[in-house]
C-alpha cells in the first residue's frame, strides 16, 4: 500500500465519444501540486479523478493506496474538494449549518461539531457571520465559507478548482495566504500565477495530455509560450 502517494496508471477519461484525458501516467507525492492549462484542457476532470467524482474509462487512480473506483466513500473522507463556483458548493441556507453539514454526515457528535464550528469560524474570521444567510455573503466570504466547510472535516488532502478565479484582488490575496498556510497536501487547478509560484510541482495540461511537468517558474514560462 502506497501511503501519502497518488498514482495514475494509464488513465484515460472520455465523455461519450470525446476523450478528455489521454493515457496519463503520473506519480504525485509533493505537498503542493498545481495543474494549469487552457479552458477545456481537462484540468477539472483531472482533479475530479482524485476523489472519485470522475471514474476513469481506462486505467487506475489510487490515492494513498485507495482505488478511486472501489473506495469512493473512504476517499471523500480523506480528500476535501473546493469547487470553482462557491455558490454551488454552499448547500445549507446559513453559514453555521453549511459548516455543520459535512460533520453531521461524518457522524460526529453534537458537542464536537459545535467545537469545530467555533474553532474554524474564529480561525478564518467568519465568527460574526455565523448565523448569516449564505446568499447574502460577498464573493470572498462565500469562497472562504466553501474552504472552511471542507477544512472543518479535517481531510488529509485538499483539492481546489480555480479557487481565486471569481474573486477581487483583496480576496485573492486573502485566499492565497490561506492556501499557502494549509497544513494538508494541496492539489489545485488555477490560472493565478501568483498563487502557483510557491507550489512545488506544476503540471501543464494541453488537450488532455500532460505536456510539461516541472517546477513553477519553468512551467509558467512554458505555458505562457504555449499560449502566445
Amino acid at each position, binding site marked *: 500500500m502506497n501511503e501519502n502517494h497518488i498514482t495514475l496508471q494509464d488513465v484515460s477519461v472520455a465523455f461519450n465519444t470525446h476523450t478528455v484525458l489521454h493515457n496519463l501516467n503520473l506519480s504525485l507525492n509533493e505537498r503542493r501540486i498545481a495543474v494549469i492549462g487552457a479552458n477545456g484542457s481537462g484540468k477539472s476532470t483531472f482533479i475530479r479523478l482524485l476523489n472519485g467524482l470522475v471514474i476513469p474509462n481506462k486505467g487506475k487512480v489510487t490515492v494513498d493506496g485507495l482505488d478511486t473506483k472501489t473506495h469512493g466513500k473512504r476517499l471523500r473522507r480523506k480528500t476535501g474538494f473546493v469547487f470553482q463556483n462557491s455558490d454551488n*458548493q454552499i448547500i445549507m441556507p446559513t453559514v453555521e449549518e453549511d459548516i455543520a453539514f459535512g460533520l453531521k454526515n461524518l457522524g460526529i457528535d453534537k458537542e464536537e461539531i459545535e467545537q469545530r464550528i467555533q474553532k474554524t469560524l474564529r480561525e478564518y474570521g467568519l465568527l460574526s457571520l455565523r448565523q448569516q444567510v449564505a*446568499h447574502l455573503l460577498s464573493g470572498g466570504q462565500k469562497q472562504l465559507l466553501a474552504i472552511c466547510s471542507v477544512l472543518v472535516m479535517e481531510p488529509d488532502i485538499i483539492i481546489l478548482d480555480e479557487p481565486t478565479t471569481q474573486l477581487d484582488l483583496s480576496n485573492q490575496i486573502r485566499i492565497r495566504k490561506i492556501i499557502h498556510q494549509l497544513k494538508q497536501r494541496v492539489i489545485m487547478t488555477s490560472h493565478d500565477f501568483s498563487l502557483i509560484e510557491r507550489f512545488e510541482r506544476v503540471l501543464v495540461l494541453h488537450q488532455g495530455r500532460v505536456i510539461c511537468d516541472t517546477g513553477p517558474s519553468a512551467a509558467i514560462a512554458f505555458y505562457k509560450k504555449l499560449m502566445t
Partner: protein
Amino acid sequence: MNARFLDHENLQLRNSFLHKIWPGFKLSLLFSFSSFLFFINRLEITSLSLLLILALYHFTGIPLRYPYEKIRSLFLIFSFIFIFQLFSSDIWTSLIVILRFTDLLLFSELITLTTSVSQMMETLNRFFKILKPFGFQPKKISLTLSLTLRFLPVLKQITYEVSESQKARGLEGNLLTLVIPLIIRTMKMTDNIAEAIEVRCYN
C-alpha cells in the same frame, strides 16, 4: 428606511419575545391557526385576527411597512380572487376570503421571520422522525427543504441575469427565451450541487 433593512434575512436576525418561543410551539400554532381560519366565516373574527397579527409585528419590532409591502406585492392576485368571489358569492364572503388569505400569509411570514432556518429544520426533522415508520425519510426531507431555502434566492438571481442578458439582445418579453436558458442553467447547477453534496460525504 431602505429596502435592505426590510430584507427577510435581516429581520430574522432580530431578537424579540417571539424569537425566543420554542419553534415547535410556533409551528404548531401556525398549523392550528391555519386550520382555525379555514372554519371561520365571520368578518369580525378574521378582521380581529389581522389586527392581532399586526400588533404582533409591532411588538416583535418589525416595522409595519414590512407586512404592508407583502400585501401590496400581492394586490393584483388578491383583486383577482376578490372579483372571482363576487361572481360566486356576496361582497362580505369575498372580503372574508381575502382577509383569510391575508391573515394566513402575514402570520406564516411572522413565524418564519422569528424562527431561524436551523430551528425550523430541527423541529421538522423531529416531526418527520415520528413519521419514519410510515416510510418518511426525515434526513432526505430535511435536506430537500434546506436546499429549497438555500437555492431559491440563487434561482431568483439566475432569472434576473438571464432576463438582463436577453434584454441586452433585444429579446425581452419573450417567455421562451427566458425559460429555456433558465432551465439549462438550473440543470447544470443541480449537477454541481449533487457533486458538492457527494464530496461532503452525504450518504
